[in-house]
């Protein structure tokens, strides 16, 4: 749990101060590393809001980055069970 919180803070900090070509991959690494990383959706909405993506309600649902994160999260649910982090 502590790693999850540290990871969340790291991603949040990178969204605030680092270029997008760092924080977007870091977000996807978080999605792969942490099981059922629903916080990813919240973080990607935050990226949209603070960095000037679409902010109106229906348009926000069709944002490519947000949709991509949702799809990756859904795809990762069964795949992550089959992944082993040990040899």
């Amino acid at each position, binding site marked *: 749990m502590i790693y999850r919180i540290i990871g969340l803070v790291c991603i949040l900090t990178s969204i605030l101060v680092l270029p997008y070509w760092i924080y977007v991959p870091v977000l996807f690494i978080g999605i792969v590393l942490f099981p059922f990383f629903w916080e990813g959706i919240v973080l990607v909405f935050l990226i949209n809001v603070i960095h*000037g993506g679409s902010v109106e309600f229906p348009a926000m649902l069709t944002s490519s980055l947000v949709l991509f994160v949702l799809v990756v999260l859904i795809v990762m649910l069964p795949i992550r069970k089959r992944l082993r982090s040990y040899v």
Partner: protein
Amino acid sequence: MKVNYLPKNRSRSVYFRRVLILIVIFVSGAMIFSLLNKFINSSVAPVWKVENRVTQAFSAGVIFFNSQKSLVAENMMLKERIHSLETELFVLSVEQKREDTFLELLGRKGESNKIIATVLTRPPQTPYDVITIDVGSNESITTGSKISMPEGSLLGTVSAVFSKSAQVKLFSSSGEETNAVLERNNVPITLVGLGSGNFRFELPRDIVIEVGDRILSSDVGTRHLATVGEVNIRPTDSFKEILAKSPINIFTLRFIFIEP
């Protein structure tokens, strides 16, 4: 009678439950963030102001430790740059005076009270070619206000205004269409933003255009919008594709002017 379900079915129900939770978070998150948009932006702006100050202080510290040789070289380069800019400024001021006289005669002299703003975030920190500036409704900025560089070239328009900050959508933002005119032959064109300060547009193959040609805004002020960077033409096409770039480096923006 006791019924034993297969573990496979149980795992499938867990999977669908989790998918449902994700979709609920997705829809409710969109609603909550669209409602809290102004509050979140107002809360984040002070963080970026502090970051800007720390970055400036750090870069000043790095300059202090630069070697004498590199400082002398930089000094020489800057002197040459000042000389070339002074010449350019002289030519421009003569042309500007001529244009101002012409506009006054037509009764179209624009009275603009420009506001200077500091850029808080710029690409590549923002993925959508959007910049955040440190003035908002406190300085009577409105949505649609034009943004320009101190040198005069147009950059974009204000897309969202908050209490002490605002977001500016650059003309080079992906998919953004801007009316413009080619300086060489006064042909009206529509620039389409490609992101990262780049544009594209199409022209009939017979129209002459060369790398380095200037593209101007279509308003009375005719300000510099972009410079032609590449001309792609295939023998079978009746149109040619032109790639253009912003005259300034959007990755190093520090100050801009706003025309409310």
